[in-house]
């Protein structure tokens, strides 16, 4: 069965800190790794990573995939209170009857204090 594990499960920091969130995956016919941010309601898409070693960046957020280690990290620099959310990692399957299926991790709850 496909599995995605995130760590830490929760993290409390102060504004201005830099955080690193971890994600490891075991996904059959792995195709890509996705990161989402979930505040009160809908998860919102952050990044999709398909190639190993190529960093994707959006403002203070960046992410990279390591296919050899079956893992990914999400970095947030100069954190702000608005970054407080659950960060979800998902592995996407690229083959067979499970094509496009996302397996989510349990999420990392990030709390940023002023």
């Amino acid at each position, binding site marked *: 069965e496909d599995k995605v594990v995130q760590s830490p499960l929760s993290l409390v920091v102060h504004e201005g800190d830099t955080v690193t969130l971890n994600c490891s995956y075991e996904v059959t016919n792995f195709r890509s790794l996705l990161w989402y941010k979930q505040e009160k309601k809908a998860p919102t898409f952050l990044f999709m990573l398909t190639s190993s070693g190529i960093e994707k960046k959006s403002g203070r957020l960046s992410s990279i995939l390591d296919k050899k280690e079956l893992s990914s990290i999400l970095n947030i620099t100069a954190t702000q209170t608005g970054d407080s959310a659950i960060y979800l990692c998902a592995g996407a399957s*690229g083959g067979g009857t499970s094509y496009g299926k*996302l397996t989510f991790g349990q999420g990392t709850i990030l709390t940023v204090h002023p």
Partner: protein
Amino acid sequence: DTAVSQTPKYLVTQMGNDKSIKCEQNLGHDTMYWYKQDSKKFLKIMFSYNNKELIINETVPNRFSPKSPDKAHLNLHINSLELGDSAVYFCASSQVLGQPQHFGDGTRLSIL
């Protein structure tokens, strides 16, 4: 305009009842999904439809039946509701299979 909209937002009902949740997307996407998020925040895929055709059907009790009248709509009907069905149900869509999914705001289902 909301891209993926679900109704109702909240649903409180008793065990044994039958209920439906509706989902509509106005993004022109070909693929739609239903997820269940339990109390531990795990999001688990239930179904996906591509152009009205069932593609993914995870191990879900057959009390759950998705229906896609057209590619912009994917509804979820649940028969004989049980306590364990209490969760937040999310609808999502993507342009095609394998592309990033856009989620609705969820429907919180509570079974009394």
